[in-house]
């Protein structure tokens, strides 16, 4: 039997996740769109969207296909579902297709999840058949369009953490040496930082100095601790919504609670930070269950 001779790695981003061959890298990233390639040549494109409140699947699919054809300058032709194809998630409905443009062609599939009502288009830049065993088949069967547990994974560009799935992505930035992801649920904001390479960034200053340089608003003293990734420093403080608000006790109810933990991961040569800002309480649980949490 043919075997897939690739080491696979997981990519998890904004609710979706899939396994791709280790040499493949994300070439383009948006909140609802990914292009993954090898040696800067695209291999797979994924685009997803949530269904509107009221819809009929047939109309919705037709609209999505028409939009994709126009946007991508491609022609889509319907294909029958490969006989050997089976996906472990039973709520997925598949619509296989082949596509062609002026310069290339390939296969793909539309996936509609009857549970979360999300529609995903996965387009392969090769016309190899999606049959078992094959690389497209392995990738497709690893695809999930929503987290299966309470925690949603985030795994890309060396970042690897999970956060409660109720937290939605509101902002992100991936610049060389500095990544940030801002997630929000109601009025609680969770910000994930990653800086690197740590050996360079910490060559002239300590972790505490680095943290206060990057987040000048940190108040009070830091407590030190150790998590599975390495040593960390943690600040927790409350502050008024505006300057000198603490003078009048009546404004205490409007205080915001901030916890910031920063950790030097020597193994990955990076500095990771998690900040949780809440108007209700110190969200220690979010910190302790984070990527630089206490590992319990």
């Amino acid at each position, binding site marked *: 039997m043919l075997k897939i001779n690739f080491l696979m790695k997981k990519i998890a981003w904004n609710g979706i996740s899939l396994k791709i061959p280790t040499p493949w890298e994300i*070439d383009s990233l948006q909140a609802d769109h990914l292009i993954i390639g090898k040696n800067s*040549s*695209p291999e797979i494109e994924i685009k997803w969207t949530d269904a509107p409140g009221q819809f009929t699947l047939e109309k919705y699919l037709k609209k999505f296909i028409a939009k994709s054809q126009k*946007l991508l300058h491609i022609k889509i032709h319907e294909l029958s579902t490969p006989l050997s194809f089976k996906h472990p998630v039973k709520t997925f409905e598949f619509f296989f297709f082949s596509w062609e443009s002026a310069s290339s062609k390939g296969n793909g599939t539309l996936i509609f999840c009857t549970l979360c009502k999300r529609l995903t288009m996965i387009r392969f830049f090769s016309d190899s058949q999606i049959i078992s065993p094959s690389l497209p088949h392995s990738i497709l069967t690893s695809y999930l369009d929503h987290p299966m547990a309470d925690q949603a994974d985030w795994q890309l560009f060396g970042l690897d953490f999970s956060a409660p799935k109720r937290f939605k992505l509101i902002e992100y930035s*991936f610049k*060389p040496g500095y990544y940030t992801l801002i997630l929000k649920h109601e009025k609680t904001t969770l910000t994930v930082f990653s800086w690197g*390479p740590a050996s360079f960034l910490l060559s002239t200053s300590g972790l505490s100095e680095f943290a206060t340089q990057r987040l000048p608003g940190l108040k009070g003293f830091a407590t030190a601790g150790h998590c599975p990734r390495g040593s960390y420093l943690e600040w927790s403080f409350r502050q008024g919504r505006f300057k000198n608000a603490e003078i009048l006790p009546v404004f205490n109810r409007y205080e915001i609670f901030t916890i910031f933990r920063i950790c030097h991961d020597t193994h990955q040569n990076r500095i990771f930070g998690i900040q949780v800002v809440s108007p209700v309480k110190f969200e220690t649980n979010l910190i302790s269950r984070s990527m630089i949490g206490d590992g319990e």
Partner: protein
Amino acid sequence: MANKKKDLAKVDALLCIPEKNALVEETFLDSGDLILSYQALYKPFFIKIQKLLQKNPKKRFHRKIQLDSLGVDVWSLVDGIKNVKDIIEEFALLHTLNYKEAEISVTLFLRSLGEKGLIGIKEPKV
């Protein structure tokens, strides 16, 4: 959206080989930083001003740039043999960086070195 034709040019660019300008002088500092000294051309505007003030205006002047330890690492990987992709991979390995992160940093840095005339880029031998 993905465009295979456009991306092929990038693949070719990654195979190009950067080479140091032999006229660049290197001075290492105790801190580990590196000073690169090179001759740069005055802009025509400044040459005109010089002509107004003196008989024999200088067309060139001495310029220095200081590289930090990350810059030194990339500079030392430029040996006229390794291509851009090799340099990115070695740099990523050296600093435990994600390939994409290293690719952006190294290509931007090489581009700025090229703009200053500190390196040239040669096409790979077929």
